[in-house]
């Protein structure tokens, strides 16, 4: 029965997505089909959760087998994905109604669910890659159906994620070769040899890029502006974090035994720290609700990678807990942005203000989720960040300092966002704005509720979801649930939050408005120039990569043209010269021809005599 349910988890959303495709022109029917699909998927996911099972169907002789594995971790991911899928489908009913392409949106949403379930349940690396890379199609499609011109962002996303997926394909090929099996749960590779280390690095590129880490991140802010908003809450905020971090954890915990102190661990932590800081610095200066959130979706991944990269239990538990927390608060934040967008028609912060009174429930949800992402106690983000700090401090003060600085900037940018959108003066255009419809508020409230629950009663997620993933032996007897933290760390966090508040007041006083609260950092000497360059896309890996590719193209174009010249120019020229030479022998004079003939005969005779 459980085995069949695993098939259902993949097949049902796929089949219902085809139904949604068939009814894509029939607005409400299609939406109802999508809602049905999301509900059915959640029911299946709930039934699967907490069970263990395995399916193995031999398929090919070259490693691709249909192998699924249901255990604590994969069941958790499937359940979380199903929850978000339902919440976002419900939210989309009013949001996407009357929009062009809403049918295609639901079709691709359900297809993404099928792929995500497949990727989470797969225990065969090639099968995992199949579902994982399949998400590229819906990634492209969901962005492309956004506002006119969205295809540019869609292509950017496809190229960046596609390149990382090719890296992962190579990593999977190497890993399978060195391990002698394609089954993830049977792989035991060590990071002391060159080959497996290479495989590890390429796999890490795939996993972290999916989660949205540097340097494959730059499509996310662009997509935030172009794609339909529920996409942002679904993919970059929830699905991609769940899958990317899930696979990262499986690489570091199951396939390879990452040990604290190894250079691979330090590499991961460095990647995490850089991602946190670079992205949050960019988030700070954004003047658009959705774009600001998008940079945070990148920045927060850094915490997860940093936590898992520490390879110590506290860090890993913190990283995984942060994954689910992030999915909650970030999709909640995006949904609040969507409700502002739907009611006011804009997400430009300079045109917003004073919405707290007009949209109190949206504001409440924003407040909870913003506190959560900033690490304010007692919300869920606080707990997971403390655990990550704990792990980071164990590995080195510098990583702790980077994470703390990231928290300062995160808090600062959310103070700015909240202030400029929900406080201050109401603009003329927004005088008559009303609260969003209930179908949008219910998912937001639910998510906000989970943010509080997972913080106050963190025993629930830690005992039921996170700690079983590591298992007794890796936890080394620790239990991280509850409220017993290192006092020093808590004090550090509180000081940083207080500083962020202070910084905000200074900024507001200087600039005179909420939206300018970060201007004194933005226009600080030195930073100013760096920001200008970044805004122009000078550091965008996509642009840099395209420039590099064009450079390669120019060189190889030259090679190709040279070869073309050899065949079209040189060969023709040589032939022409030869025929010119031979033609000069043909003067039309018979005596000369006769002499040629006599000389030829003589040559033949000489040769014959010699041979004999």
């Amino acid at each position, binding site marked *: 029965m459980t085995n069949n349910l695993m098939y259902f988890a993949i097949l049902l959303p796929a089949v219902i997505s085809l139904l949604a495709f068939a009814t894509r022109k029939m607005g409400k029917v299609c939406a109802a089909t999508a809602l049905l699909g999301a509900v059915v998927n959640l029911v299946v996911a709930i039934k699967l959760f907490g069970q263990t099972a395995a399916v193995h169907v031999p*398929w*090919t*002789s*070259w*490693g*691709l087998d249909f192998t699924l594995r249901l255990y604590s971790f994969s069941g958790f991911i499937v359940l979380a994905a199903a929850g978000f899928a339902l919440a976002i489908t419900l939210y989309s009913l009013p949001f996407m109604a009357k929009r062009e392409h809403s049918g295609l949106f639901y079709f691709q949403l359900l297809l993404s669910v099928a792929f995500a379930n497949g990727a989470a349940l797969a225990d065969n690396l*090639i099968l995992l*890659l*199949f*579902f994982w*890379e*399949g998400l*590229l*199609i819906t990634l492209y499609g969901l962005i492309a159906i956004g506002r006119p011109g969205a*295809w*540019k962002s869609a*292509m950017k996303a*496809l*190229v960046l994620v*596609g*390149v990382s997926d*090719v*890296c992962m*394909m*190579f990593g*999977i*090929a*190497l890993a*399978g*070769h060195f391990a002698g099996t394609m089954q993830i749960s049977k792989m035991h590779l060590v990071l002391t040899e060159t080959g497996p280390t290479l495989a590890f690095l390429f796999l890490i590129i795939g996993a972290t890029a999916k989660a949205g880490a540097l340097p494959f991140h730059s499509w996310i802010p662009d997509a935030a502006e172009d794609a339909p908003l529920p996409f942002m809450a679904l993919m970059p905020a929830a699905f991609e974090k769940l899958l990317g971090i899930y696979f990262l954890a499986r690489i570091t915990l199951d396939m390879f035994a990452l040990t604290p102190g190894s250079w691979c661990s330090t590499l991961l932590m460095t990647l995490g720290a850089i991602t946190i800081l670079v992205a949050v610095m960019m988030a700070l200066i954004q003047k658009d609700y959705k774009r600001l959130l998008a940079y945070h979706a990148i920045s927060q991944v850094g915490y997860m990678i940093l936590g898992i990269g520490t390879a110590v239990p506290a860090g890993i538990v913190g990283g995984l807990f942060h994954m689910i927390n992030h999915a909650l608060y970030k999709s909640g934040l995006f949904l609040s942005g969507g409700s502002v967008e739907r009611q006011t028609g804009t997400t430009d912060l300079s045109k917003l203000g004073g919405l707290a009174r007009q949209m109190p429930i949206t504001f409440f949800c924003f407040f909870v989720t913003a506190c959560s992402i900033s690490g304010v106690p007692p919300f869920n983000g606080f707990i997971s960040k403390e655990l990550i700090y704990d792990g980071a401090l164990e590995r080195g003060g510098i990583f702790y300092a980077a994470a703390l600085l990231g928290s300062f900037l995160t808090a600062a940018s959310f103070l700015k966002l909240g202030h400029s959108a929900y406080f201050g003066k109401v603009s003329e255009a927004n005088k008559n704005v009303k609260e969003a419809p209930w179908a949008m508020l219910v998912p937001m409230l639910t998510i906000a509720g989970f943010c509080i629950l997972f913080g106050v009663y963190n025993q629930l997620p830690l005992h039921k979801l996170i700690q079983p993933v590591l298992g007794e032996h890796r936890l080394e007897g620790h239990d991280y649930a509850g409220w017993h933290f290192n006092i020093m760390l808590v004090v550090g966090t509180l000081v940083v939050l207080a500083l962020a508040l202070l910084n905000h007041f200074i900024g507001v006083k200087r600039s005179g408005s909420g939206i300018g609260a970060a201007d004194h950092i933005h226009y600080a000497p030195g930073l100013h120039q760096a920001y200008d360059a970044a805004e122009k896309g000078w550091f965008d890996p996509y642009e840099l990569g*395209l420039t590099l*590719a*064009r450079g*390669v*193209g*120019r*060189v*190889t*174009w030259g*090679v*190709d043209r040279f*070869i*073309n010249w*050899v*065949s*079209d120019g040189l060969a023709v020229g040589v032939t022409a010269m030869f025929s010119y030479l031979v033609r000069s022998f043909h003067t039309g004079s018979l005596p000369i021809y006769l002499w040629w003939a006599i000389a030829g005969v003589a040559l033949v005779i000489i040769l014959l005599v010699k041979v004999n």
Partner: protein
Amino acid sequence: MSLDTIMLLVVVVPVFGSLLLPLVGKVCKSTRNGLALLLVLVSLAGSLMLIGPVMSGKVITLTFPTGFGQMMLMADRLAVFMALVSSLVGAIIVFYSWGYISHYENQNEYYLLVVLFLGAMMGLVFAANLLILYIFWEITAIASWRLIGFFRSPAIVLRADKSFLVTFFGATMMLLGFIMVREQAGSWDLPAIKAALVGHPLSSAAVALILLGILSKSATLPLQTWLPDAGVAPSPVTALLHAAVLVKIGVYAYARLFVVNMPLPEIWQTIVPAIAGVSALVAAGAALLETDLKRLIAFSTISQIGFIFLGLSIGGELALAGGLLYILMHGVAKGGLFLCAGIVEQNTHCKDITKLGGLIKTMPVTAIAFLICTFSVIGIPPLGGFFSKYMVIAGAAKGPHLWIVLSFVGTAFLTIIYLMRVFVMVFMGEPKTELKSEGSPVMVWSVALLALLSIAGGLLIYYPSFFATEATRQILGLIP
């Protein structure tokens, strides 16, 4: 009907049937069109009928004593696989031609040459004798020469001459190589050669000469430049050249000669992948700068052929099976790309991608078919191209030449960029030309069918993959 008769009919029916087409065309055009498709379908049906016997381990042979050997035709799994791919894609292309070529003159000649071309391909695939192989090889060269120069303007005829001269140069070198093989092994027959060469590897001079022929036909560096130039041909012809038949002749000959019958000295397992790697990279880079739609897809073909060569030449079961599967998946997807390009070209009278745009609004089916085929060539699941690309890369990663594999990974990056660039420039953005409606139903159905085949090839990967791995195991002698 005995199996060897079926095999003979697969070859003979299109080769000789094609000669009837101009006569029938004088009487009735639609009968001619139907007959042309029927002739190719006979090959397809015959190949399908051969699947069962060859999969059960039979090797079908047809012998006929002549002055140059006993063996004439032979069908093993590799041959049947290749015949199926060619006749399947070939049949769709002939069907598409019904719509495309109806706008032009000299249709009788067109159908004669296309069917003759496909028939010669069948002969080449089943050939079990070096001379037979050479004869069919040159028939395809002559047919393609005439087809590339189908639109008679002098510049176009010059391009056709170039492609003929380059491939003819290669073929002559190959013939010299064949003569050297004959000297060394004492026979033209492939099975006899195989037996004679056990323990006596072929001389490197012979290998190099034959390789020149193969590279010229498969448009691989340094003999690749004729292929983009051949883009002046009618679109179904370019599809035929690039996707289904001509360029696959070279890779098939490589598999037939060097993998099955004349094992190469060790050193060539480095040389050939290295050539393929450079060729794939150079063509992919050039595709990034090219602006002519058909030339661009031609560069893409050169680049993808590199992947196939990598699979066939690097050694190992997985890579070899991947290379064979790649022939199928690339044939279907690239055929789709060219036929879509044909619809675009015929409707807008423009091949310059910088002057096109926004066509998805009026040509949605063509656009989506093009996108699906693009995804397949890039290697995105659930499309067929994903599996073949994975198998080739993974198979090559088992080998000792990690740098060569990494260069192919780089080429795969470029593939994503240049193919998406084409799609975006042609179908997205603001329309720059007068918008026209879709092509004729026959043409749209053909591209939709190829796109669907790309999807089916991925979702039902079990069957083509099983066929390819079984063929590989037979080639490597693991099973009879």
